[in-house]
């Protein structure tokens, strides 16, 4: 009997000792787990790369995959007066016709993709305590730059949105689904970009740099009407060693050129690291029959203001001469031969980098900051920046004064199909006027509420009543 007691006691002690966390949740030795990972600089850096990977998006024909920046043209350029689908079909045509459904898969995918960027940025910020003192500011700056860029896009597209500035748990529905005012979102964007500008250096363009943060912050300040702040930032970027490529074509086909301030990298032929938009913009080369085709209005703008840029930005579709294609991002630089569809490489696995910020944009932002919401400027500094852009396009007549409309037109042809036009119209306060007229001329159904996308219906459903839809949807 006594022996049994001891045995029982021994078991009890044995169990008590074994019931530590390690026993029930052992750290796997042959695989990586999130619990122990991000413990040093090397591991955290993979987290930082992961943020850019989220922006890059997945090259896939399934909208179940986060497509990231690869589908941005749908929700920006195709909602402006620059581009449309070739055949007015399907979900994609909702954008040009201004009858976007809250169940539109692209609207949902973009939203989800950029909240994924925000999540990955928050993950890095959460693990910063494990980084070395030397590297922590670099990682924090990159994560905050990416988070700000994602929020800046989301807030301009969807309006009031949930503010998530840390890792949240699955039960924190109030954080995940409470829409906060754009003012609060912009406060986070500004403070994130100020940190990035103060802590990052220059020299990279596939990763965030000081110049990239300053340029993006300048755009934010222009959006908010803080013109002097924007001007100071632009002038800092303008003196950071970047320059205009003498040949406009080289901006897009000579990767790593000195005009690029920040770009998303893609590599050709690799499914996990390539993009499909170059193919989608052509005639039946990608999955669609052709999207992001040039509108008659954009062609007219090129005829009037484009100069040398016209021939390098658009072309007649070789297979369908009544239609006009974008040529800024031809798959791996190949023009597709006589029919526009014959490539030596796989066009659906294109490697063209996507340029997010380039020097020309900063020069025109500099003009905008000096214009400062006015109708016209003849300030020497503004004229100098404007003239550089015009000169490269072969429009060398000296400019003596720049009106708001001149600037908007110049931005339209210089930065066409780079997903700027919609945001420019909004920032210049003319989106409703311009898009109403565009819509009337084409029989579309634009209304003021189309300036914001719908919150994806899936989010509203998950929110269990916490989220309201934008008006008009």
């Amino acid at each position, binding site marked *: 009997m006594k022996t049994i007691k001891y045995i029982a006691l021994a078991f009890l002690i044995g169990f008590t000792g074994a019931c530590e966390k390690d026993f029930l949740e052992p750290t796997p030795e042959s695989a990586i787990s999130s619990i122990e990972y991000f413990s040093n600089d090397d591991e955290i850096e993979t987290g930082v790369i992961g943020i850019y990977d989220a922006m890059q998006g997945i090259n896939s024909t399934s909208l179940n995959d986060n497509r990231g920046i690869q589908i941005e043209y749908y929700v920006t350029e195709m909602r402006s007066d620059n581009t449309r689908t070739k055949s007015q079909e399907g979900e994609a045509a909702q954008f040009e016709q201004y009858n976007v459904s809250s169940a539109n898969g692209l609207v949902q995918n973009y939203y989800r993709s950029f909240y994924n960027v925000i999540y990955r940025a928050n993950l890095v910020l959460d693990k910063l305590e494990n980084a070395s003192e030397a590297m922590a500011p670099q990682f924090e700056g990159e994560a905050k730059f990416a988070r700000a860029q994602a929020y800046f896009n989301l807030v301009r597209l969807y309006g009031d949105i949930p503010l998530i500035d840390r890792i949240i748990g699955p039960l924190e529905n109030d954080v995940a689904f409470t829409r906060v005012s754009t003012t609060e979102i912009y406060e986070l964007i500004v403070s994130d970009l100020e940190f990035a500008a103060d802590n990052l250096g220059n020299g990279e363009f596939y990763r965030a740099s000081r110049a990239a943060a300053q340029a993006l912050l300048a755009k934010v300040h222009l959006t908010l009407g803080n013109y*002097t702040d924007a*001007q*100071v930032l632009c002038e800092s970027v303008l003196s950071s060693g970047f320059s205009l490529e003498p040949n406009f074509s080289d901006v897009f086909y000579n990767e790593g050129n000195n005009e690029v301030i920040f770009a998303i990298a893609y590599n050709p032929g690799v499914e996990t690291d390539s993009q499909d938009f170059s193919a989608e913009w052509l005639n039946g080369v990608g999955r669609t029959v052709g999207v992001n085709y040039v509108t008659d209005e954009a062609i007219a703008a090129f005829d009037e203001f484009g100069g040398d840029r016209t021939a390098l930005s658009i072309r007649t579709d070789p297979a369908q001469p009544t239609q006009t294609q974008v040529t800024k991002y031809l798959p791996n630089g190949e023009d597709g031969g006589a029919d526009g569809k014959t490539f030596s490489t796989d066009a659906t696995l294109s490697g063209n980098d996507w340029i997010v910020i380039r020097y020309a944009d900063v020069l025109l932002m500099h003009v905008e900051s000096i214009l400062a919401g006015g109708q016209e400027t003849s300030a020497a*500094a503004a004229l100098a920046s404007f003239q550089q852009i015009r000169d490269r396009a072969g429009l060398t007549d000296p400019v003596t004064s720049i009106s708001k409309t001149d600037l908007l037109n110049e931005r339209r042809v210089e930065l066409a199909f780079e997903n700027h036009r919609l945001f420019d119209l909004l920032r210049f*306060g003319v989106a409703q006027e311009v898009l109403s007229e565009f819509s009337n001329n084409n029989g579309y159904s634009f209304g003021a*509420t189309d300036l914001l996308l719908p919150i994806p219906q899936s989010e509203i459903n998950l929110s269990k009543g916490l989220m309201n839809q934008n*008006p*008009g949807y």
Partner: protein
Amino acid sequence: MKTTKLLTAVLTLIGTIVLTSSCDFDYDLPEEGSIPDETPPSANFSAAQSDTDFLLYNFANLSSSATTYEWDFGDGNTSAEIDPSNTYPDEGTYTVNLTASDALGATSTFTMDVTVVEPEVPEAIVPVVLEGDFEDNSLPDGSGDGRDSWRNDFGGVIQITSSPVQSGDQASKYPSDGDRVAYQEGIAVTPNTDYIITYYYTLKTNNPGSVTLTVLGGGITDLSEVESKKLVDLVGMDQADADTYTKVDLSFNTGANATVAILITNEGEEARVDNISMAPVPE
């Protein structure tokens, strides 16, 4: 028995007819089986002044759950468009009313005042240089010793002289060892605008010397920042006559600065500066 059967059949027939016709009775009680209008309209809009015609306003209809709209622009004009625009007859405050209705007849009204004002062409700020003439009691509140606005951490406080002066009773004085500095920051200007700063100086003639006035964008916290913040400067070296002031006009563009600062230093010989003023260059 047969009669009974027949009677039953007839009664059944009558009953059926009665029952059938009774089916015409309206069983639908009010509210029974219907649900309330859970998404009544909510009216809302914003208004934006046109860039080109200040009397023209574009309205953005931000209503939800509505199908028809009635606009009253407050000047007698009305519209039933979704996003209308209206040209007002004149400047003034107008009460704009939007009634949004859904197909069930539920309505919602939103009202907002629109104040129509012709935007002023922004004129360049005329900067105020405090104690620019170095006179006593010349601050806006009637106090000051002529140099209160010029004190700083970059050098000793400047001296005041009563002779020679360019005008008034006093001018600023900078002894020959050059350790006194005048500095004033926070002078409000319009960015990207051409200005002229005007001042008068004189130097004694015993030793070669100079007096330098620098206009700085924003301000500085250390003299090492002068080069990077300098908008314009002039090294005054006119030593023809110690008692005759030399007039200086310096033009500069404010660039990306909403304020500027003035810094005055000297070297080698005693200097005097008087009557500093700043004005935008007339268009």
